[in-house]
């Protein structure tokens, strides 16, 4: 199924794929040694070699995307500047990271507050299904505090040679040609909390915009808008005996009362739980949905006190333009949040890393100037690697978050062991594994059965109210 999606996606692309090796040496007028496997359909411009200095790249935004990008750039020998406006920012976030992120980004285990190994899905009629029995002992979903994770990644970038600047990015001057630098204007804070900061400028050759859902870099390159969901969350400190229940368990509540197009959740944090919900289409009713979520979880959070209320936007799909010239967007700024689960941390970090890798490669470790084509490679690689994941989650959201009967069927399907195994495998390792075709067929039949039954019951329910 994944390959079918991939084929249709590739066919729509205008640029020819770089995988075909027979187009190896079609580039003309190369005065420098041939670049690696670069497919040229159009005349190439020779990128000038930089004299006396390395490539300068600025990463705007010091979250997971920015931190990962800055680290990879610095390791690749590039003069890196990481501009972050608030060093102790506690980004409101679900805080869940998949297992593969720990390995891929060498995260120390003490960053992870909790290891969630069980999840409970609760349907509109409160049918509760436990998932996680198929997890192996070493598998878990890591719950982190964003301030801890972000700080760690930034520190690591700094240790590798990136210069971390505490400043607020304001705007940037776009150069007219391919060699002049981008001039960034920012307010430098110099570590002083509060205060306006002083206006400074910075000249760089390329920019990675990792400044989140309300990205200013995106505005600067006219990247366009995206639909976004509002996620609203309350941190609630609950009594210890109730907290014990959430020791390694997270809950997901689905239903029209909780959210018309998303889900409500109870995620355990370091010493409290985060109860929240989100929506795209009915943002005005978010408070109502939050009350409903609290009501559904009431028995388990009884006696709790709200210690913090927070909200943040979650992009629903990538921006129309993710790249312009030598400026690329990564993470939430680009809109790399999956549907259905709303997962963004891993994809932010991974896209930051991928973009940085493309720059390092395109500039040959900082020795050459980069151009748009080098950055486009990152987009290609990203879309090729993760498109199946995004598409599958989009389909799941469209099918199972449609209506209450669909959600009931969704929860019923989650009780199936094969579903659990496939879900966790693809979530924890970020691959869309093909699975056993016979089991897939059985799963398809069961899914249709569940959907049909739930919709039939809904018809009965509608008759009752008449």
């Amino acid at each position: 199924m994944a390959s079918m999606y991939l084929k249709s996606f590739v066919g729509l692309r205008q640029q020819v794929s770089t995988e075909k090796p027979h187009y190896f040496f079609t580039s003309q007028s190369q005065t420098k040694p041939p670049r690696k496997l670069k497919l040229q359909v159009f005349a190439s411009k020779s990128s000038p070699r930089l004299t006396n200095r390395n490539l300068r790249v600025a990463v705007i935004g010091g979250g997971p995307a920015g931190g990962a990008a800055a680290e990879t750039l610095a390791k690749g020998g590039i003069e890196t500047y990481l501009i972050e406006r608030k060093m102790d920012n506690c980004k409101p976030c679900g805080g869940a990271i998949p297992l593969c992120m720990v390995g891929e980004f060498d995260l120390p285990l003490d960053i992870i507050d909790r290891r969630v190994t069980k999840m409970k899905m609760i349907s509109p009629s409160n049918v509760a299904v436990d998932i996680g029995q198929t997890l192996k002992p070493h598998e878990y979903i890591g719950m982190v505090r964003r301030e801890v994770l972000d700080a760690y990644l930034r520190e690591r970038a700094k240790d590798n040679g990136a210069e971390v600047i505490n400043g607020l990015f304001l705007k940037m001057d776009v150069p007219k040609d391919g060699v002049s630098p981008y001039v960034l204007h920012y307010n430098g804070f110099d570590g002083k909390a509060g205060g306006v900061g002083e206006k400074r400028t910075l000249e760089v050759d390329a920019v990675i915009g990792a400044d989140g859902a309300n990205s200013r870099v995106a505005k600067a390159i006219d990247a366009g808008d995206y639909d976004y969901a509002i996620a609203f969350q309350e941190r609630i400190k609950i009594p210890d005996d109730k907290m014990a229940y959430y020791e390694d368990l997270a809950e997901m509540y689905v239903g029209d009362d909780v959210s018309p197009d998303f889900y409500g959740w109870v995620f355990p944090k370091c010493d409290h739980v985060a109860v929240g919900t989100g929506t795209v289409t009915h943002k005005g009713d978010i408070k109502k949905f939050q009350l409903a979520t609290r009501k559904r979880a009431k028995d388990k959070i009884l006696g709790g006190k709200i210690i913090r209320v927070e909200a943040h936007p979650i992009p629903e799909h990538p921006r129309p333009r993710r790249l312009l010239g030598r400026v690329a967007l990564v993470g939430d700024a680009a809109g790399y949040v999956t549907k259905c689960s709303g997962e963004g941390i891993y994809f932010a970090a991974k896209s930051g890393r991928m973009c940085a890798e493309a720059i390092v490669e395109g500039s040959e470790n900082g020795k050459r100037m980069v151009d748009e084509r080098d950055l486009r490679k990152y987009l290609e690689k990203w879309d090729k690697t993760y498109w199946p994941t995004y598409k599958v989650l989009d389909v799941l959201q469209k099918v199972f978050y449609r209506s209450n009967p669909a959600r009931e069927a969704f929860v019923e399907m989650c009780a199936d062991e094969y579903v659990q195994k496939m879900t966790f495998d693809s979530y924890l390792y970020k691959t869309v594994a093909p699975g056993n075709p016979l089991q897939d067929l059985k799963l398809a039949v069961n899914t249709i059965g569940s959907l049909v039954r739930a919709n039939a019951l809904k018809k009965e329910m509608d008759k009752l109210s008449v």
Partner: protein
Amino acid sequence: MSISLALFSPPTQPPLLFPSSPSKPHLTLIPHLSLRPSKFHTTTKASAENGAGTSPSAAAALEIQPDQKVAETPKQVVQKDERSVGANGSAGAVETEEDKVLSQFVDPKWLGGTWDLSQFRKDGKTDWDAVIDAEARRRKWLEGNPETSSNDAPIVFDTSIIPWWAWIKRFHLPEAELLNGRAAMIGFFMAYLVDSLTGVGLVDQMGNFFCKTLLFIAVVGVLLIRKNEDLENLKKLLDETTFYDKQWQATWQDEKPGSSKN
């Protein structure tokens, strides 16, 4: 008082379905027992002492009305009142009152988080239609009065315990009859029309490729377009399937081949 109140049908069903139950004076309370909780405040005063006297526990409710097939509305109404008062009173803090949070959906046939099939026996076999009805009522109730999910009383009902033929008999067959009827009418009329226009009989029509195509279109049309809205819905569905792809492609539309601008 409690017994007569108990004879009421649940708020989701109009009194028409239970013609034998309530006597006239009590009928006035029925319109108040709507699904909107705000109305409950006024009606609960009468039964306040009733509910407050007994401790709010599901067991107590079950004891009082063991034969009732329907949910215990008066008790639930009172409890709802207490809870909403509590919610209004505590500003900023989650409910801190001591009362135990419990399920408001109470039904004698609902045991241990699922329907007790042994109570649905009819003529020695399980009456699946009644199970379907009961579950529909439960879901309807919960849709209007969402309640907390509880660890002590987890709900484990799975619709797949109802066998496939029960679903088919109840839901698919009537619809199938309808659709087949439509198909037959269209088929007969078209066959007659084509025969009268071209002189080709029914058997010969089936041999023609064009006619076979028309037949296919007719069958698909009858299956997919059952209501007037379905045409719009199908178009929207088609757009939906490709919308996300287009959003991802947007950045590639940007790139013009041969562009050397940086």
